[in-house]
């Protein structure tokens, strides 16, 4: 006698400890096998693009901190300030550009640490979470000494940065980098050869190079699938063209490859930071930009490499004090497309591992 089977629809989220925010996944199951996954987004839509049309160019710096991806406030400010500066033809002083690179990379490390900690906790490794947040607090201390904030800084200004580095900060940051490299090795002793971790990640949630490109994936997700693309190399902004660093590219396209890519990225960030700290020039930190600045009529698209991928800002100006239209190209949103392809055919237990591996932040998806 044949057993009758039917597919089961399972709602995961919006309240779920492993969805990294308020994402709802509608999972169609055949037994334990995942047949289909449909992400349901919009639970954190903050209408930030619309709000930016009502605020001046200077005010908007505070808004991109919160409205866009909240883990990488400084990288958001970088993308936004770069767009306005290129549109208005503002030239940033040399020192400010180096400081920006330093803070971009520190924020990249902090963001990757949050990702590693929360993903490891999803996979059952609580210690990694505690260790990652231990180092993250040290980065936040470095931020606090300069910007005054832990998470939202409003540190970049149009044409530079708000304040100069305090005395002794450069040495302190250098000492932290030395310490941090030993800690990355320590994370690896917990995870990289851990049989449980390998069983849950190696070969799980694969996506091919062609699929990754077709879905618009970028950042570590694309680089783990063999797409050798990094905006810092492809279209260098600030002073990234003077930095020596490697872009880690793996071809496996599974969760484990995404993990290795991010770990290597943290080490490469340390390399960039060391060069930037060593070559940090003196001089002005901020060009003179009036508070009521007006951008000339026109439009511009600027993209930067955020920790999650290719973060772009499209800005249209009608010549006034506020942008006419802002469109944010969010990397998490495009990576979410790739999620369905990654999850099809895997077991229900792998859904958590795959979802965590693409490092999703819902504020970036919904905006």
């Amino acid at each position, binding site marked *: 006698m044949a057993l009758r089977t039917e597919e089961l629809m399972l709602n995961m989220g*919006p*309240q779920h*400890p492993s969805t990294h*925010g*308020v994402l709802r996944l509608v999972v169609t199951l055949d037994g334990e096998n995942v047949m289909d996954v449909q992400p349901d987004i*919009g*639970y*954190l*839509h*903050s*209408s930030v693009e*619309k*709000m930016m*049309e*009502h*605020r001046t160019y200077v005010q908007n710096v*505070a*808004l991109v901190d*919160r*409205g866009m991806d*909240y*883990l990488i406030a400084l990288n958001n400010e970088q993308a936004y300030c770069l767009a306005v500066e290129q549109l208005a033809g503002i030239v940033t002083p040399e020192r400010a550009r180096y400081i920006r690179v330093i803070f971009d990379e520190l924020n990249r490390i902090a963001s990757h640490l*949050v990702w590693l*900690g*929360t993903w490891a906790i999803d996979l059952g490794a609580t210690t990694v*979470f*505690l*260790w990652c*947040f*231990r180092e*993250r*607090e040290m980065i*936040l201390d470095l931020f606090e000494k300069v910007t005054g904030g*832990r*998470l*939202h800084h409003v540190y970049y200004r149009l044409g530079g940065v708000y304040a100069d580095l305090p005395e002794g900060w450069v040495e302190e940051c250098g000492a932290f980098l030395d310490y941090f490299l030993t800690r990355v090795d320590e994370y690896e002793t917990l995870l990289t050869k851990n049989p449980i971790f390998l069983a849950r990640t190696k070969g799980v949630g694969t996506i091919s190079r062609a699929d990754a490109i077709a879905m618009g994936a970028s950042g570590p997700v694309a680089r783990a699938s063999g797409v050798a693309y990094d905006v810092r190399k492809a279209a260098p902004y600030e002073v990234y063209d003077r930095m020596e660093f490697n872009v880690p590219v793996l071809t496996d396209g599974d969760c484990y490859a995404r993990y290795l890519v991010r770990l290597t990225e943290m080490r490469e960030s340390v390399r960039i930071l060391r060069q930037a700290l060593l070559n940090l020039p003196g001089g002005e930190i901020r060009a003179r930009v009036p508070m009521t600045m007006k951008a000339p009529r026109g439009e511009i698209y600027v993209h930067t490499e955020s920790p999650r991928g290719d973060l772009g800002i499209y800005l249209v100006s009608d010549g006034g004090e506020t942008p006419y239209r802002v469109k944010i190209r969010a990397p998490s949103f495009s990576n979410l497309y790739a999620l369905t392809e990654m999850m099809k055919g895997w077991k229900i237990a792998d859904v958590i591992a795959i979802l965590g591996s693409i490092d999703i932040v*819902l*504020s970036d998806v919904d905006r």
Partner: protein
Amino acid sequence: MNTLKTSTTMATGSATPAAAPTGPAGEPLPRRSQISPIADAVAIMDQIPGGGLILTTVEAALNWGRASSIWPLTFGLACCAIEMMAAYASRFDLDRMGIIPRATPRQADLIIVAGRATIRIAPIVRRLWEQMPELRYVISMGSCATCGGPFYYDNYSILKGIDQVIPVDVYVPGCPPRPEALIEGILKLQEKIKREPILRQQAAAALRGA
């Protein structure tokens, strides 16, 4: 306390309208109301001399236990959730205050609304709150959950304060509040819990429901 005593006897009387038992002097005797053991216990304690003192002591012991093991729901909405995670993690370590995050609302005493709530998520927050067992508390963490914060003006999608949906016990200001601020909010909530006359509240609630 007096009003409670009257209401207790009234309720006992209404349960058996025919013959309320009386003492030698004709005063109504305390008896099992069949409504709620807590209501009965409170009624009996209130009538014996010094009973109120014992009741208060028992309440203090109960409240000390409740305040020292607040289990919050792991539910983060936006940026403040990152600071909430930092508060759970190594440096700030909420575990030492007996705060252990629970993944399901059925086991939680406290919901920390961390971050901006959209109009779309509001019914879900409300349902989570309804799913929590009684004697539940709400901390509104950050400006957005308190009043809409930086998303107050020119915005069509953010709820202007979570207290439009669920009652809030403690508001923690900040954008986002530092983990120290969240810990301060939790200490305030503990103070509030320790002041609550829970036995009398529960007895009154049981009698109201009867």
